């Protein structure tokens, strides 16, 4: 919401207040002012154009002006042709900084001296219009522009979705007034000015098909209006709010929207067939040419305003071109209605069309606001466009707004805030916010919120109203604490339990990544891991349309990314959930196993690949929990991985489940004996099988055995390999003798010969 500070002065005395003060009060109270732009117009002077001629030499369209600045005349060149002789214009003289930041200098343009600049509305930050010079409707040449246009301050404020009443200057002023304890200059509900005959409701028939979608429709009739430009001050305020002035009638509807937050629409009554208004759902394939010049095909879930024959407006979103107010219009139907928020939001989304009106209706406006807005607009039309406001308007109001009463035990305010707010102060704050407070005999308060506040329904809402105006900075920070007779012992979080793993991986040179869980479904399919994949119905893009069933594809991409950026050696891991749909169960939440996956580059040769595999395996320490291996060349190619890549992925929960507290073993009292053993077996025999055989033959004396080398070559027969083991023998009772160990070694050899036809190398 764009707020013009100067506009707030219509509703509230701003004496002694700066725009910064106002912004701070609003932010403190819950209307967050995100930016404050000061527009200082004091250095801009008013000039009167005496002469305008086309620049003869310039190839661009430039115009040379002689401008009266009150006693002296300056020559100024401009690119727009609209500052015709007699125009009053804002002039920035050399040395002046224009509000948009530009510094004006003396210039010579193709032989013509230019001493200053004629300003557009956008250069003065008075609006978005940069098409021409801003033409003033009054002012004295040579005087400061601030004699006709006050310096401005524009605030961009974020209004929360529960406060549509603050989507207008009146609501913002009310908030500010409550915070400053200053009275409002104007009542919320304007007086009704309609007196003309015949009654408005006799001039147009209004009906509502579905009260769920439209709870109120007011159709005000005003006849005999003169359509023309709206006054300068109104145009200026509209421009400051980034609304383009059209004509006085349309401008007034927009102006009241920016004041009251109630969207309005004016139809040319003569163009309405019937004349009748029917609020109904669009019929299939009905079309409407909007005020923006776009013709749209409507669907049956969209709400329209129709006359006796056809849709004339898309309810709450945009009016129709065919029934719009033009220069020729004399009689108008002023629409002020209340539409269902979700319905308007749905239509606005479906058409990709968000307007000032739809942005307000989406948040569910109170029906009472419709009446206030209609009355305000009618009196402005009568004042600025002439015309007669007819009495007794059509006002179809099938669901009257029920007053909400809230009972509150006033001590709840202190209980929730944790500080003491004197009762009188709390009551005064509620009254400043237009709440009625009745103190009952039992001390409870019977509170009636103002009609424009649909968001207040429970006692806690009232606590918030008091708290935010009282000031939360006055609530001292405390830590909660009382005697508890029950508690839950601290259980280490999953993250904490994985800390050890992260340290091990870091020590082994692996860096942790966090990659998105949404990946390309097509990619999962091509890797053939899409059987349990869940596809998002409303994905943002193809590469984020499916939940990953494995972390590995993301890690492969991570390797490719780092390779692209010049890294040859990459070691990465991630700990995150994989998502596995429960096939055949509709609407069931998927399994979400927490996974640990790691990936490492492993050179280019087969040997490097094997070494990489072994290095990765030692990280896992032999547990069988998931997949480990070298990435298949086809997969590697698909993921644009050059060279060999090894990877694993495991479920974390079983690992954590298997974790145990280490129990201390007595330190060995006697020395151990180490022996190496080179076992020659056929290539097909795995090191693990040989190790098993060694352990079986060795008995209790063997403390530890481990393979440490594998050899192929001249000293080993073709089709065979030699695996070297180191064996440690120890007894808990005595120092072993060489003879004892020799006996066991002989047993081991014998076992290996039998089981694996092994030979031995010295």
């Amino acid at each position, binding site marked *: 919401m764009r707020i013009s500070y100067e506009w707030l002065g219509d509703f509230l005395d701003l004496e002694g207040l700066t725009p910064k003060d106002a912004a701070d009060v609003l932010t403190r109270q819950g209307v967050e002012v995100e930016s404050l732009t000061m527009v200082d117009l004091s250095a801009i002077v008013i000039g009167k154009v005496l002469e305008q001629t086309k620049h003869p030499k310039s190839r661009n369209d430039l115009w040379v002006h002689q401008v009266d600045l009150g006693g002296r005349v300056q020559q100024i060149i401009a690119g727009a042709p609209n500052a015709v002789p007699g125009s009053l214009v804002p002039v920035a003289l050399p040395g002046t900084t224009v509000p948009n930041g530009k510094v004006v200098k003396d210039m010579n343009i193709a032989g013509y001296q230019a001493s200053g600049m004629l300003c557009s509305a956008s250069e003065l930050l008075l609006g978005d219009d940069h098409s021409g010079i801003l033409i003033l409707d009054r002012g004295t040449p040579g005087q400061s522009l601030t004699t006709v246009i006050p310096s401005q301050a524009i605030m961009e404020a974020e209004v929360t979705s529960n406060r549509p009443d603050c989507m207008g200057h009146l609501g913002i002023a009310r908030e500010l007034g409550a915070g400053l304890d200053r009275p409002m200059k104007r009542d919320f509900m304007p007086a009704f000015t309609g007196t003309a005959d015949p009654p408005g409701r006799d001039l147009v028939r209004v009906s509502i098909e579905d009260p769920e979608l439209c709870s109120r429709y007011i159709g005000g009739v005003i006849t005999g209006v003169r359509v023309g430009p709206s006054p300068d001050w109104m145009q200026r305020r509209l421009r400051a709010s980034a609304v383009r002035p059209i004509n006085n009638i349309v401008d007034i509807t927009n102006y009241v929207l920016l004041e009251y937050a109630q969207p309005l629409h004016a139809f040319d009554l003569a163009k309405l067939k019937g004349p009748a208004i029917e609020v109904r759902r669009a019929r299939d394939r009905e079309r409407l040419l909007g005020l923006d010049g776009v013709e749209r095909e409507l669907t049956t879930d969209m709400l329209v305003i129709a006359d006796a024959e056809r849709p004339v407006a898309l309810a709450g979103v945009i009016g129709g071109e065919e029934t719009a107010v033009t220069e020729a219009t004399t009689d108008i139907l002023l629409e002020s209605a209340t539409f269902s928020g979700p319905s308007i*939001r749905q239509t606005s989304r479906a058409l990709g069309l968000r307007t000032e009106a739809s942005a307000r209706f989406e948040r569910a406006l109170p029906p009472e606001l419709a009446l206030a807005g209609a009355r305000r607009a009618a009196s402005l039309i009568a004042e600025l466009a002439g015309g007669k406001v007819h009495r007794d308007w059509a006002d179809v109001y099938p669901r009257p707004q029920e007053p909400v009463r809230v009972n509150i035990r006033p001590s709840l305010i202190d209980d929730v805030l944790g500080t003491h707010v004197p009762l009188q102060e709390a009551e005064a704050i509620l009254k400043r916010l237009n709440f009625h407070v009745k103190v009952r005999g039992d001390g409870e308060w019977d509170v009636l919120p103002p009609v424009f506040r649909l968001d207040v329904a429970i006692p806690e809402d009232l606590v918030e109203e008091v708290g935010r105006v009282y000031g939360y900075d006055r609530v*001292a920070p405390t*830590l909660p604490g009382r005697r508890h007779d029950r508690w839950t012992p601290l259980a280490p979080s999953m993250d904490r339990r994985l800390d050890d793993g992260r340290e091990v991986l870091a*020590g082994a040179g692996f860096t942790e990544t966090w990659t998105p869980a949404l990946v390309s479904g097509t990619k999962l399919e091509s890797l053939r891991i899409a059987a349990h994949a869940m596809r998002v119905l409303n994905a943002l893009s193809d590469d984020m349309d499916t939940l990953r069933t494995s972390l590995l594809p993301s890690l492969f991409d991570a390797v490719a990314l780092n390779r692209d950026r010049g890294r040859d050696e990459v070691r990465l891991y991630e700990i995150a959930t994989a998502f596995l749909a429960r096939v055949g169960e509709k609407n069931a939440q998927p399994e979400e196993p927490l996974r640990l996956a790691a990936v490492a580059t492993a050179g280019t040769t087969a040997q490097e690949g094997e070494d990489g595999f072994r290095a990765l395996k030692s990280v896992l320490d032999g547990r069988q929990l998931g997949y480990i291996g070298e990435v298949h060349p086809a997969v590697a190619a698909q993921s644009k991985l050059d060279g060999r890549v090894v990877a694993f992925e495991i479920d974390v929960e079983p690992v954590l489940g298997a974790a145990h507290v280490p129990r201390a073993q007595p330190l060995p009292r006697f020395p151990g004996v180490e022996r190496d053993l080179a076992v020659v077996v056929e290539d097909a025999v795995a090191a693990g099988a040989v190790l098993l055989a060694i352990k079986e033959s060795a008995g209790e004396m063997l403390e530890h055995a481990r393979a440490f080398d594998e050899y192929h070559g001249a000293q080993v027969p073709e089709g065979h390999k030699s695996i070297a083991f180191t064996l440690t023998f120890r007894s808990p009772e005595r120092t072993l003798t060489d003879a004892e160990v020799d006996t066991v070694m002989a047993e081991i050899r014998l076992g290996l010969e039998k089981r694996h036809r092994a030979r031995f190398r010295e």
Partner: protein
Amino acid sequence: MSDPSALTTEALAAIAQAPGEDALAKVELEYLGRKSGRVSRLLANIGQLPPAEKAALGKAANEAKRAIEAALAARRAELEQARLADLAETEAIDVTFPGPPLGRGHIHVLTQVRRQIETVLESLGYQVELGPEVETEWYNFEALNITAGHPARENWDSFYFSPELLLRAHTSPVQIRAMQRIKEPPIYIITPGRCYRRDAPEATRLPYFSQVEGLAVDRGMTVGDMKGTLLYMIQSLYGADRKVRVRPSYFPFTEPSFEFDVSCGICGGMGCKSCRHKGWLEVGGCGMVHPQVLRNGGIDPSQWNGYAWGFGIERMAMLKHDVDDIRLFYEPDLRFLEQF
């Protein structure tokens, strides 16, 4: 046969002049060597002397031996001291030359920040609770008072798998699940985890991000308690000089609702370029748990009340480590990951 005292004088002179260990060893060998040392030989020959001389010479020779040994030890200590005194010069190395790389990997900055947050809140008695990332409509919205058609729903535009099933837009569903599981307060939990919203990726937001939410349900909880908890958390994470401000805001699941800001660490709240002259940096949302939300979690709001708060882990990490683009966290670029 030499005179022990002459021998001693001679030896002590040699020791005093010995320039280093080698010379000393030579002197030691010459006088005290086991077989051919001059003092040793003297002692070895004592046996052949007449008993009258034996005692006197034996005593003198032993004294000579002790004197030489003492002198050797003293000279050695002296030389060692001299050597150590020169060590800085004799064994000088280029201390600027780097050691071999350790090749250690890095733990992700978001993991580190999440860990810090957990540690701080665990110190206040909060426990970590986790929940599913694919949630039901009820837990993600209805239970949190965000009914269908609610105007606030557009703040949580979500990814759907069916009208009933979606990727959670916040970790708040875990609060409901925790209340249902624990049943009887006190409840003090934090809920770290990944969340998803249908926002196009840009420098300040992503369709996927990580949150930590906190929930405290007990008797007589106040806005002051909530402020104190936030202040303790922020000061523990960013330093004791930081301040916290709560600003009224609106969420359907809390009443009253707030956004909370932390004072700018660069200007200390005065206003500077990095806080866009506000003096404050937005961190997250908070509020007193709405009575209906307590009811949805199976807690009786007439007996218990509480507060909750939430924020993005990325936002915390950005503030702490001056990261200016949220996308860096999820792009597995080692050049970024290795900075932490």
